[in-house]
């Protein structure tokens, strides 16, 4: 049986690490459902990062490495948010990994 995330009564296929298989399956409800499974409620600060990742992916066709994400977030949302500490507070399982999953993107390249 393949793994799935249940969103509004519909099962969407995910890979063995919980990443969405079909990027086009994504909606904000997918992010919310995945976060709920992790016991997390997404705040506007979370969404800021998730939306940033989606825009980054749209532009460059990859999910950024954490170092690149931190730098780019700092540039776009201000230096106080462009820190590893801030991002880890929002996404304790690793900002690039966890936020990318909620954003419906593949795991960042070079992320182990």
């Amino acid at each position: 049986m393949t793994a799935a995330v249940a969103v509004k009564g519909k099962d969407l296929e995910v890979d063995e690490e919980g990443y969405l298989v079909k990027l086009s399956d994504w909606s904000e409800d997918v992010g919310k459902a995945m976060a709920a499974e992790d016991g997390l409620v997404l705040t506007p600060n979370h969404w800021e990062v998730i939306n940033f990742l989606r825009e980054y992916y749209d532009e460059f066709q990859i999910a950024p490495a954490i170092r690149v994400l931190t730098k780019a977030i700092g540039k776009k949302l201000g230096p106080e948010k462009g820190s590893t500490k801030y991002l880890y507070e929002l996404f304790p399982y690793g900002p690039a990994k966890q936020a990318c999953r909620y954003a419906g993107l593949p795991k960042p390249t070079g992320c182990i």
Partner: protein
Amino acid sequence: MSADDGAEAANERTERNVKRFLFVNRKAPYGTIYALEALEVVLISAAFDQDVTLVFLDDGVCQLKKGQQTKETGMKNFSPTYRALEGYDIEKLYVEKESLEHRGLTADDLLVPVKVLTTEEIGALMDQQDIVISF
């Protein structure tokens, strides 16, 4: 072109445990997996803070061509990812002049800013590296 940057810089690299990597891209972007795999290796090496240089020659220059349409090939157009390299601090991109000319291309046809070097200059660049990996 980046000439040999001297003993001081070389010592600093040794202290930081940084090696000079040169990735040589010689194949057309689609049809084989080489170009995409090379790009992934490049991104990973940057995550380890290495000194990374890219060279594009032969059909490899086509990897950087603007306006790629891959829908009919059934492969994802990964060319926008070359524009992300700057954010990974990978800014040393070189393209061989002869390879461009043979394909009727100029630097203006490419997605990202590059330096165009002659075959001879590329040879000199290769000489300065610790590790050269060809795809």
